[in-house]
């Protein structure tokens, strides 16, 4: 995008990250690379490199083979298994940790609707006034912590 001052790598990564999280929090939608480039006023190829750097640093997870953000954790870009209602909007998490993380990032009351990984029965959790006001069930991590990022989608 000509006419804009080029940012250094650190400043660009910060601008990209902040835009993605503010946009996701305010709209419940994770922006696409061209939208991020327009918002931060930087060329798309540079913004795509920034998105990939931040993915390599485990800030978020990309859709395979693209610079599209699949999950700006805790916010998932597409409807997934964990639905979170907060601030009058519907957000999605890729796991129960992220679903509860949405309430934490938003600093908001939230209702999480999950399903039992085994029997698919609905389980509802509620965050109220910064605490878990309703929670049932048991959380299971299949992968040891040292291997979480080997295959984050499975984790």
């Amino acid at each position, binding site marked *: 995008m000509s006419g804009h001052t080029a940012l250094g790598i650190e400043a660009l990564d*910060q601008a990209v990250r*902040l835009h993605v999280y503010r946009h996701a929090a305010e709209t419940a939608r994770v922006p696409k690379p061209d939208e991020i480039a327009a918002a931060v006023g930087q060329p798309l190829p540079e913004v795509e490199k920034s998105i990939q750097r931040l993915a390599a640093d485990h800030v978020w997870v990309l859709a395979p083979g693209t610079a599209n953000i699949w999950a700006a954790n805790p916010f998932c870009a597409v409807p997934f298994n964990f639905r979170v209602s907060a601030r009058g909007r519907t957000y999605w998490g890729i796991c129960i940790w992220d679903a509860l993380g949405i309430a*934490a*990032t938003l600093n908001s009351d939230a209702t999480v609707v999950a399903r039992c990984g085994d029997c698919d*029965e609905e389980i509802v959790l509620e965050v109220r006034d910064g605490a878990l006001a309703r929670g049932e069930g048991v959380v299971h*991590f*299949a992968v*040891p912590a040292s291997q979480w990022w080997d295959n984050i989608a499975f984790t």
Partner: protein
Amino acid sequence: MLLFRSEEHIDRWCAFRELPRGGIMSPEQCWLLAHAWYADKASPDWRRRTREEAEAVLAGIGLTEPFWSLHA
């Protein structure tokens, strides 16, 4: 990481997939983990935690067994 109705449901899920049982935590622990991990994620001051800091977060909610170690 998934949520299950009970440990019996976890064991059935693991058996069906021929996987060993992993690590478990309560929804309350998961909320405390989520809050510690994500409350500052949208902040300008956020930075990725070091491995030691991440392990301290896990230990802070009572997850100290080897399963929760971030050292390979």
